[in-house]
């Protein structure tokens, strides 16, 4: 018995067959609480505040007044829109990490109309043009790697990643060539700004995010095309056997994925930034990858995770502005990093269980 125990490692991992929904919720809740604790401890070490002050600052920084609440929801919505764009591609096992580039490509297409025709066309004409060309621009940015994957079996992860850098350089080039004084600043034009809804300049962003989530849910779960996506993603051979054209599905889905990201770019240009810059979207193209993956493409989870990340972001920046002599804005990224680490970590524990040496169920 003793010799037997020696050969057995101290702990090992066993894949779970399934986990009850209640248990899954508990594991996730524990992960979020642990992440909050680590964030709090991190802040205690870098500031003079107590843990209560830290958490109350995070809450008040997010919900202090209508401006902060609006920022909180807007950031969550932008993250969510990009995440629902990435979801269908992931479900098809097309690893699109080019969300950032697709947002920029859409933004460039929209900004082009704004820059050249923002004084010449009325809103009713220019906004649809900006919207459609942003979707096409983002779509093209995603379909290029898709074509290469289908025709030449290139690795789409690397390809979409590299497309990000091309987009970033193009934006830098446009900023210089469009602006006679080198720093483009805001593109101040008579038209091309998204109108306010219910007196809120970001109102339409909320509507687009809400409609987008519902439409994407229906598309992925209730339509033939959505079904084709999951078949191609999970069982390419079955897809071939069933007569589904892999080429058509991959190209169509990649285009759709990029187009939704491109629409996010349109929103940045027409409603939020009113210009383009390579920092547009603040790296959400990458964060959204984790949002989509964590939520298993479930729209409700995507919404919740987006809101959680937006909360951590605004809460962290509040703590930074209370301690500006010692902290700077990169703190928010550190905290989002801590959260994502725990969220990804908990996925591991949902799929595997840790078995200690000598425990009964190890023998099963």
């Amino acid at each position, binding site marked *: 018995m003793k010799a037997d125990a020696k050969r057995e490692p101290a702990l090992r991992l066993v894949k779970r067959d399934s986990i009850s929904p209640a248990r899954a919720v508990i594991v996730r809740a524990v992960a979020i609480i642990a992440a909050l604790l680590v964030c709090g401890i991190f802040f205690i070490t870098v500031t003079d505040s107590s843990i209560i002050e830290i958490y109350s600052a995070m809450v008040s920084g997010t919900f202090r007044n209508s401006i902060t609440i609006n920022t909180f929801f807007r950031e969550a919505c932008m993250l969510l829109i990009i995440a629902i764009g990435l979801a269908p591609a992931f479900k098809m096992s097309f690893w699109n990490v080019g969300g950032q580039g697709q947002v920029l490509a859409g933004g460039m297409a929209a900004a082009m109309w704004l820059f*050249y025709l923002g004084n010449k066309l009325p809103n009713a004409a220019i906004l649809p043009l900006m919207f459609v060309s942003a979707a096409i621009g983002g779509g093209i940015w995603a379909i290029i790697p898709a074509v290469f994957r289908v025709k030449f079996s290139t690795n789409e992860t690397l390809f979409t990643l590299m497309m990000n850098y091309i987009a970033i350089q193009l934006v830098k080039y446009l900023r210089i060539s469009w602006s006679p004084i080198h720093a483009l*600043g*805001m593109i101040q034009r008579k038209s091309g700004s998204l109108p306010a809804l219910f007196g809120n300049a970001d109102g339409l962003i909320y509507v687009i995010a809400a409609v987008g989530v519902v439409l994407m849910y229906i598309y992925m779960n209730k339509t033939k095309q959505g079904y084709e996506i999951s078949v191609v993603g999970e069982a390419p051979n079955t897809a071939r056997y069933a007569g589904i054209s892999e080429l058509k599905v991959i190209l169509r889905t990649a285009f759709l994925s990029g187009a939704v990201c491109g629409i996010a770019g349109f929103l940045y240009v027409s409603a939020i*930034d009113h210009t383009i810059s390579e*920092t547009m979207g603040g790296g959400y193209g990458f964060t959204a990858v984790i949002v989509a993956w964590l939520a298993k493409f479930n729209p409700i989870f995507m919404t919740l995770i987006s809101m959680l990340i937006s909360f951590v972001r605004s809460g962290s920046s509040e703590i930074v*502005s209370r301690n*500006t002599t010692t902290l700077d804005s990169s703190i928010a990224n550190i905290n989002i990093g801590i959260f994502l680490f725990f969220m990804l970590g908990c996925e591991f524990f949902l799929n595997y269980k840790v078995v200690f040496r000598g425990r009964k169920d190890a023998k099963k």
Partner: protein
Amino acid sequence: MFKKLIALMLASLFVLLAFAACAEDAADTGAYGTSGTKELAKSGVVSTTAADVAEGTKKELKIGVVLIGDNTETYSKAHIDGIRTACTNLGIDPDDSSKVIWKMTVGEDAGCTAAIDDLVAQNCNLIITNSYGHQTYTQAAAEKYKDKDIQFIAMTGDTALSSGLTNLSNAFTEVYQARYVSGVVAGLKLKELVDAGKIADKNKDANGNIKIGYVGAYPFAEVVSGYTAFYLGVKSVVDNVVMSVSYTSSWHDSDKEAEAAKSFISDGCVIISQHADSEGAPMAVQNAYNEGTVVYSVSYNVDLTSLGDAILTSATNNWAVYYEYAIKTAMNGGKIATNWIGGYAQDAVKITALGKEAAAGTEAKVNEVIADIKSGKLHVFDTSKFTVGGKTVTWAYATDTDGDFNYDANNVITDGYYHESYTQSAPSFTLRIDGITELNTGN
């Protein structure tokens, strides 16, 4: 389907190209003239200092500061120091986050809007942005929050007046005066070198003029005004001098600035000055000096004499003068001037301590020049001291009314000199005078 899409895209591309072609109108000339005169424009700037601010109903002030850099970058450091001094003088603790909120390393992009929104959300009622490129975002925020009781200041900006917004202000210093004085310091050193026979043939161009160099950031008026003033300061002491200007296309790029300085040094330039915010160029000069090259540096923003003996002085701003005025005005419930300007007369500009190698008698000469600037006896941009295309300039516009970046209104030359920072606080001088060569376009 895809073919149709591609056709559609190509069509829209052609349309855009056509528009782009139309947009490139020929640049209009007629921004200045060398014969005849025009009526002097109306001055749009004030130079009130804190001492003159009337006491009023005290208002609870919360200041929000948006900076392009932080303490490690000389331009922003000068602003941070200025605001801290002003706050301390007015009894505000600059480290109390319920009184002053600092936003450092904010880019000239949408991050600026986010920073300002956050400051507004935290109830700041005086918001300052310190870089020229922040201005469009500051202006948009002033427009967005015009119903709130918030004053915005876009430092070094130039659109407060034309925007028509009453809650937006611009401010600048007459740092060109300090540049001129730093040029005099360089000129005196040059004269000493000439008298000592230390100027070799490689330090002169084909016409026997001594070569000096200037590392600029961008070809903006702010930079052109500065290097022209510096050159005229040098020239007021040593007449046979020519200057080359090299743009780095960045306000702060240590490597590019060092590279530009090294290129000047190998070309034989004896004095190298700069309008860029890193220590790249002065370090390069100091290194060459250590290796025995005859070369000296006149820097910007901060005292760099600690780098070594090759550093003669720096032209710098004393931003505290303006900030104290602006903060005190806001505290007393007043309206901050739309365009503020201050020079030697307001103690808003100066040169830093002279280096060890500065020529004998520099201090006395510098004080004399400063006194003449203050009294109005000496004007930096005296039109009898420079020419454009070989001719004396008799009138020059200083305002761009149609947004094409060419001046088309408001003459500022009269009484024999160019009135810098006269219609608005930001510098307007963009004449390219004889004796100065731009080596690149800064694009």
